[in-house]
């Protein structure tokens, strides 16, 4: 490992989210994302993945509120920023793609305009120029016939296409951080593969860091260098992807890996039971941190002589 480990794009420390004081949903989550890195966040439904992503963007809706911790984006404590400054970051420096491509786009506005809006708002372009840029953006997410498509309304596109449009919007201003919250869960497997590939490719090209939220271990394995596993509001484990799959440390992670039927694992002779999570993880173990949390910093520190 190199000693000149770059400064993280995003550094979340001890993030706590709750409804009021009494009801904590996130109990101190910490992680870093390095420039150009794709960081995965997996976990069961309701474990707090989405609200983590939303809080980075500053899109938490009342009654949810950040109750503690800090979020540093490119060294800047975004929680201390004013509303306006925060808004300027959004869409420009950090962007987000949501799960549901069906409803995430305004049904009454052409997609061209929805993309162009990014350039108008963040780059101060006129609508005309912005439109040209929007067509380029569409082209870059491999939408065929972008000129024509720009005039289409969301309902005229398939789910995969719409998700591409979402990605075009998110990446329009070449952000430094892309938060993708289950970007492909609503899509077909065949379509999903294409979309994921696209995200990976574009971000690699621009050096964009990605926070990929998913509960699909396959997707995570496909995309990410490092993975954090969330369970019941805590980050219970963090490892390099490969290491995680080979040597899951936390019982919950182990359970998760075991519960999934794997393609090609069935033989003609056997059809065994799948491992259920409850068999693997005692309920009092759920949501607890493992004693040693492996972070890139500590990896870096270990690597030093």
């Amino acid at each position, binding site marked *: 490992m190199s000693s000149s480990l770059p400064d993280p794009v995003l550094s979340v420390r001890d993030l706590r989210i709750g409804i009021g004081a009494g009801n904590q949903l996130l109990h101190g989550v910490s992680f870093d994302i390095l420039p150009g890195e794709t960081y995965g966040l997996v976990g069961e439904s309701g474990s707090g993945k989405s609200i983590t992503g939303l809080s980075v*963007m500053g*899109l938490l809706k009342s009654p949810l509120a950040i109750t503690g911790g800090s979020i540093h984006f490119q060294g800047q404590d975004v929680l201390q920023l004013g509303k306006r400054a925060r*808004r*300027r*970051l*959004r*869409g*420009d420096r950090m*962007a*987000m793609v*949501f799960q*549901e491509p069906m*409803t*995430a*786009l*305004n*049904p*009454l*506005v052409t997609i061209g305009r929805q993309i162009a*809006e*990014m350039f108008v*708002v*963040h780059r101060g372009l006129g609508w005309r120029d912005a439109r040209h840029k929007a067509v380029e953006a569409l082209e870059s997410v491999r939408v065929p016939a972008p000129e024509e498509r720009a005039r289409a*309304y969301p*309902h*005229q596109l398939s789910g995969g296409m719409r998700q591409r449009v*979402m990605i075009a*919007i*998110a990446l329009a201003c070449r952000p430094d951080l892309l938060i993708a919250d289950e970007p492909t869960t609503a899509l077909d497997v065949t379509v999903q593969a294409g979309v994921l590939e696209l995200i990976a490719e574009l971000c690699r090209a621009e050096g964009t860091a990605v926070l990929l939220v998913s509960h699909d271990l396959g997707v995570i394995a496909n995309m990410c260098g490092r993975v954090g596993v969330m369970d019941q509001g805590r980050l219970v484990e963090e490892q390099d992807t490969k290491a995680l799959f080979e040597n899951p440390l936390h019982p919950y992670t182990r359970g998760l890996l075991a519960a999934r039927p794997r393609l090609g694992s069935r033989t003609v002779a056997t059809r065994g039971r799948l491992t259920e999570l409850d068999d693997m993880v005692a309920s009092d173990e759920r949501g607890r941190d493992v004693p040693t949390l492996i972070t890139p910093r500590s990896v870096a520190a270990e690597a030093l002589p």
Partner: protein
Amino acid sequence: MLRFIFRRTLQMIPTLLAVVLIIFVIFSVVPGSFISSLMAEGRNATNADVMAHLNAQFGLDKPWPVRLWNYLWGLAHFDLGISYRTREAVWGVIEPRLWPSVKLALAAMAFAAGIGIPLGFIAALKPGSIFDTGTMVVAVSGLSLPEFWFGLLLMYFFALQLGWLPSFGYQPGSFRHIILPAIALGVSPMALLARTTRAGVLDVMNADFVRTARAKGLAEPRLIGAHVTRNVLVLILTTLGLQIGSLMGQAIVIEKLFSWPGIGSLLVDSVSTRDIPVVQGTVIVIVLWFLVINMLVDIAYAVIDPRIKVD
């Protein structure tokens, strides 16, 4: 487009037929007749023999199936019949009232939309707050004041106390004359619109694409202007259409109060004098207006909402 209008126009026929039938049935059991209404003033100016002749002249001595058939037959030839009261063609009685009525309905709606929609927006942006409730109280007070009283209060205040506006009357080109009746007529749709808008905005603000717009870094005014408003409009449009559509027939009390030459007052007058052909004709006109407005609303949907699906 033309084909759509054609289809919708054809679809109006059964509705109109139902309306004619309903009115016919109701008024064949309603007590009191055109004849008795002529004698209602107690002036003894009418004579029973003459009235019997009248009955015959209007075919009222025939059995009801014949009358209904005659009416429908006339209707098929775009003939609304002869008014019992004026003995003119019904269309001639209705026609001069049409434009003032349309004007009043549109003006009332303009007022209702102009006040109600912003009010609804304001209330929805901070739902549940005292401010929201306050706005709704204002809106609802419009809804709970009998329009007669509201009209009178307006007259007293704006015409008599302030002397700003004429208190009554209709002048074809005059904007000033339409203001007070339009407000009086518009309060209740205004309240309704405020409420619909509030609900609509609340719905839209919860939509996923609004979150997307926020993630795009849009400032609140742009967010509302570019993304919320249009979508809310789709929701509001139905209410708006229904209101404009039914306003024409609802302006009864207001038209009377402000001496406005509209369809509504013609309708009650015809009901109270049992001038059935005019009642029929007026109701047909009102229903047609309603249907046409609804058709226009559907077209507007198609313009605003590219997803439009009818049927």
